[in-house]
C-alpha cells in the first residue's frame, strides 16, 4: 500500500471499493439525519417537561416531519453498500453475520419498530399523550437507532478479527474492548449531528425563504452549536480510537495510502466550522454558509469512510481478496447498471421537478364530479 488510495489497488478492487464507499456515504447522509434527529428529539422532549413547546419549534417539527422519509431513504440507500460489501469482503462479512447470529437478526425487527415509532412521533396524537409516554416513545426510538449502530459496529469489528472467530463461535463471547466500541460509536454519533445540521439547515433555509413570519425560522446558532460540538466529539473519539489501534492500522492511516484522506476529513471539518461560524455571527441560515458546510460535510464523510477502510484493509488479508474481485468483475451486466442508473437518476430529478411544478395551492376537491356524457 505505497500509493494513495485507490491508485495502488488493482482495477476491479478499486472499482468495487469505491462503489462501496460512495454508496456508503450516501447511506450515511440519510442515516445520520435519523440518528441525530431522533437523539435531538429525545433531548427536546425530556428537556421541555410537561409542555410541548420545544417540540413544535421549526427544528423539531421539521425533524418529526421528515424522519420517516429519511429513514426510508437510509434503508434504500443502504442496500447498495450492503451489496458491494458482499463483493469486496464476502467471507469476512458473512462470517461476522453468522457469528453474531440472533444478535444480528434482531436488527431488522428493531428497525421495523423504530420506523413505526417515527410515524407515531410525526403524528399530532403522540403530543397529546402524557409526558412519560412521550418520553418513552422518543427514548425507545433513539435507543433503537443507537442499538442498530452498535450492532453494525460490532459486526464490523468482528469481520476484522479473523484470528478470534473459532473462539467466538464456541464460547459466544466477543473479545472487544468496551472503550474501543464506545469511541467508534462516538465518532458516528458525533459526526451524525454535523451531517444532520447541514440537511436540516437547508430545509429551514427553504422554509425561511418561503415564510415571512420570523417565528417559523429556527435558530441557526442551535444548529451551529450541535454541528461543531458533534464534530469535536467525533474528532476526539477518532483520535482516541486510532491511538488505541495497533501499529499496522496506524501506519496505513498515516501513511501514503490514506494520509490525504485524513487531511481531507480535517479540512472538511474546518470548512464546516467556518460555514457554521459565519451563520452564527449573522444569526441567519445563509446559502453561502450552508454551501461551505455541505461541501465540508461531504469531504469529512468521504475522508472518514476511506480511513475506516484503511483500518479494515490492515486487519484482513486484502491482497488475498483481489482474485475474487477480478473474477466478479468478469461477469456481465455493468453496462446495464450504468445505463439504468443514469436513466433512473434523470427520472428521479424529473419526479422532484414534477412535484415542484405540479402543485396547486388548494386542497383536492372531494365532491363527486359529473360523469362525462357521450
Amino acid at each position: 500500500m505505497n500509493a494513495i488510495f485507490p491508485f495502488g489497488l488493482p482495477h476491479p478492487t478499486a472499482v468495487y471499493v469505491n462503489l462501496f464507499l460512495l454508496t456508503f456515504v450516501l447511506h450515511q447522509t440519510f442515516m445520520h439525519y435519523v440518528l441525530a434527529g431522533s437523539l435531538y428529539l429525545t433531548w427536546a422532549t425530556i428537556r421541555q417537561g410537561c409542555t410541548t413547546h420545544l417540540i413544535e419549534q421549526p427544528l423539531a417539527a421539521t425533524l418529526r416531519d421528515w424522519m420517516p422519509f429519511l429513514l426510508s431513504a437510509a434503508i434504500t440507500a443502504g442496500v447498495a453498500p450492503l451489496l458491494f460489501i458482499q463483493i469486496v469482503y464476502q467471507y469476512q462479512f458473512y462470517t461476522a453475520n453468522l457469528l453474531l447470529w440472533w444478535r444480528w437478526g434482531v436488527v431488522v425487527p428493531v428497525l421495523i419498530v423504530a420506523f413505526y415509532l417515527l410515524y407515531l412521533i410525526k403524528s399530532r396524537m403522540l403530543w397529546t399523550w402524557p409526558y412519560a409516554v412521550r418520553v418513552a416513545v422518543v427514548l425507545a426510538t433513539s435507543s433503537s437507532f443507537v442499538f442498530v449502530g452498535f450492532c453494525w459496529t460490532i459486526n464490523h469489528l468482528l469481520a476484522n478479527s479473523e484470528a478470534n472467530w473459532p473462539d467466538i463461535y464456541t464460547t459466544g463471547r466477543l473479545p472487544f474492548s468496551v472503550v474501543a466500541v464506545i469511541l467508534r460509536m462516538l465518532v458516528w454519533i458525533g459526526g451524525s449531528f454535523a451531517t444532520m445540521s447541514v440537511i436540516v439547515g437547508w430545509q429551514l433555509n427553504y422554509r425561511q425563504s418561503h415564510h415571512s413570519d420570523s417565528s417559523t425560522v429556527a435558530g441557526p446558532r442551535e444548529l451551529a452549536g450541535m454541528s461543531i460540538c458533534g464534530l469535536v466529539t467525533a474528532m476526539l473519539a477518532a483520535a482516541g480510537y486510532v491511538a488505541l489501534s495497533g501499529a499496522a492500522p496506524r501506519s496505513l492511516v498515516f501513511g501514503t495510502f490514506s494520509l490525504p484522506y485524513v487531511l481531507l476529513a480535517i479540512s472538511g471539518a474546518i470548512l464546516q466550522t467556518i460555514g457554521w461560524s459565519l451563520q452564527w455571527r449573522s444569526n441567519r441560515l445563509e446559502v453561502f454558509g450552508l454551501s461551505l458546510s455541505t461541501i465540508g460535510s461531504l469531504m469529512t464523510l468521504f475522508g472518514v469512510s476511506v480511513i475506516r477502510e484503511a483500518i479494515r484493509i490492515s486487519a484482513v488479508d486484502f491482497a488475498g481478496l483481489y482474485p475474487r474481485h477480478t473474477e466478479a468483475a468478469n461477469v456481465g451486466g455493468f453496462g446495464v447498471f450504468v445505463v439504468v442508473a443514469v436513466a433512473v437518476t434523470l427520472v428521479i430529478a424529473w419526479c422532484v421537478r414534477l412535484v415542484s411544478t405540479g402543485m396547486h395551492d388548494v386542497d383536492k376537491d372531494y365532491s363527486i364530479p359529473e360523469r362525462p356524457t357521450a
Partner: protein
Amino acid sequence: MSDVYPINDYGPLMPGLVMAGVAIVHVFLAQFAVGGGILLCYFQWLAMTGREPHARRFVEGYFKLLVLMSFVIGALTGVGIWFTAIQVSPATIGAMVDNFHWLWATEWTFFCLEIVSGYCFYRYHSRLNDHTAMTLLAIYAIASWMSLFVINGILSWQLTPGRWLETRNVFDGFFNPSFWPSLLFRTVVSMTLSALAACVVTNMMGSLDREARTSLINRAAHLLIPMVLMPFLGVWFLAVMPADSRSWVLGGSPAMMLFFSISIGSSMAIGAYALIGMVLQRLYINGATSSLMLMLAFGATAGGEFVREGSRKPYSIRHLLYSNSIKPDEVALLREVGCLGNDRYGLRQDAQYPNDQVRIGAKVFRRQCSVCHTVHGTNAVAELTGSWDENQMRINFAKLQHTKPFMPPFAGTAVEVESLVQFINWSGSMRPDSWPASENPQTLAQIADWLSEAGTAPGDFAQNRKRTTSRQHE
C-alpha cells in the same frame, strides 16, 4: 475447496423454515406493492375521467396503507431476507451476488425510484394536479414492476440456470427457461393481492356508503380477471421445470405435493369467488370476507414459495451448489480428504460429547445435514432414521443420493459416514454420558465399497423407470 462458514443451531427449527418465514412475508408485501402500483394507476385514471366518483379518495387511502406496510415492513424484510439467507446458506447467496451483482445493483436503482416517486406522491398528493399525480403513480408502478422483473431473473436462475451452465453469460442466466412464466405468474399474483387488499381498504373507508363501497370493490375486481391465466402460466412453469423437480412437486415428495395442492386449492377458491361473485355477479364483499380472502392469498403465496424453494432439491443452485453448500465437483475430493479438513470451528459445549468419533459425527451433521434437518425437531434425523438398524443407516448415508434422489451425495469418507451414524444413534439414545466407539475395519471397508458404488454424481430420479425398462427388455 470452498470456504467453510460457522453454522448455527436453530434447535427444533430447521434454518430453511426461518428463511421461508421471512421470505414469504417479504414476497407477499413486495407483490402487493407491485400490484398496488398498477391498481392505483387504474383508479387514478378512473378519477381523472370521472368514471368512478370515489376513486380519488380511495387512491389516497390505499396509498397510505401501501406506504405503511410495503415501504416499512416490505423494505425491511427485503434486507432481512439477505441477512437470513446469509445465516442459512452463505455460499448460495454469495454465488448469486457474485454472478448477478450488476443486475442486483440495477434493481436497487429501480428501488430508489420506487421510493422517491412513492414518497413524492404520498407527501404531496393533496396538492398535486391530476396529470402530475398520474405521472408519479405511473413511474411508481413501472419502477416497482421493473424491480420484480430484475429479481425474478435472479431467483428463477437458481432452479433453471439454462444455457448459463455452458456459457456463463449473465443474460443467459437471467433470461432462463422459467423467467417468463415466473414473471407473468408473479405479475398476476401481484394484481390479485392488490385487488384483495383494495377490498379490505374500501371496507375501512367508513365515510362511504354501501353503494359507493360496492362500486369501488367492483372496480378493484377488474384486476382479478387475469387470474384466469394462472392455470396456463402454472402449467407453463411446470413444463419448463427440470423433470426431477417436477416429479417432487407432482407426488415424489409428499410435503411439496401437499404445499403445491394448498397453493392451487387456495388460488382456485379465490379465483372462483372473484370471477363468479365479484366480476360476473358484481357482489359486495364485506371487510371480514375480504380479509379472509387476503389471508387465503397469503396461504397460497406461502405454499407457492415453499414449492419454489423445495423443488430445487438437491440443489440450492441447480448443478452449481447442493443445498448443503457443497459443490458437485467437490464431492469426489471430499470423499478422499474428508469434509472437515478446512472446518476450523469446534463444537459448542464440546464436553457433552462422549468420544471423538461422536464429535466428528456432530461436525459432519453440522456441515452436511443441518441446513435441512435437525437432530430432534423439524425434519429430525433421529426420527427419520429411528427404525433403521446401523447397517441400514450406513448404506443409506453412503448411498444417500440413491436413498432419496432429492438428497445430495454424501461428501465425505467412510470414517465420516460411520461417525455420523454413531452421532445420530447417540442422539437418538438420549445422549448417554458414555458411548462405545465403533472402529471395526470391516465395517469401514464395507462403507467405502458402498460409497464407491454410489459414485459422486447426483441421484437419478428416473432410475427406477430405467430398471423397469431394462427388465422388460430382458
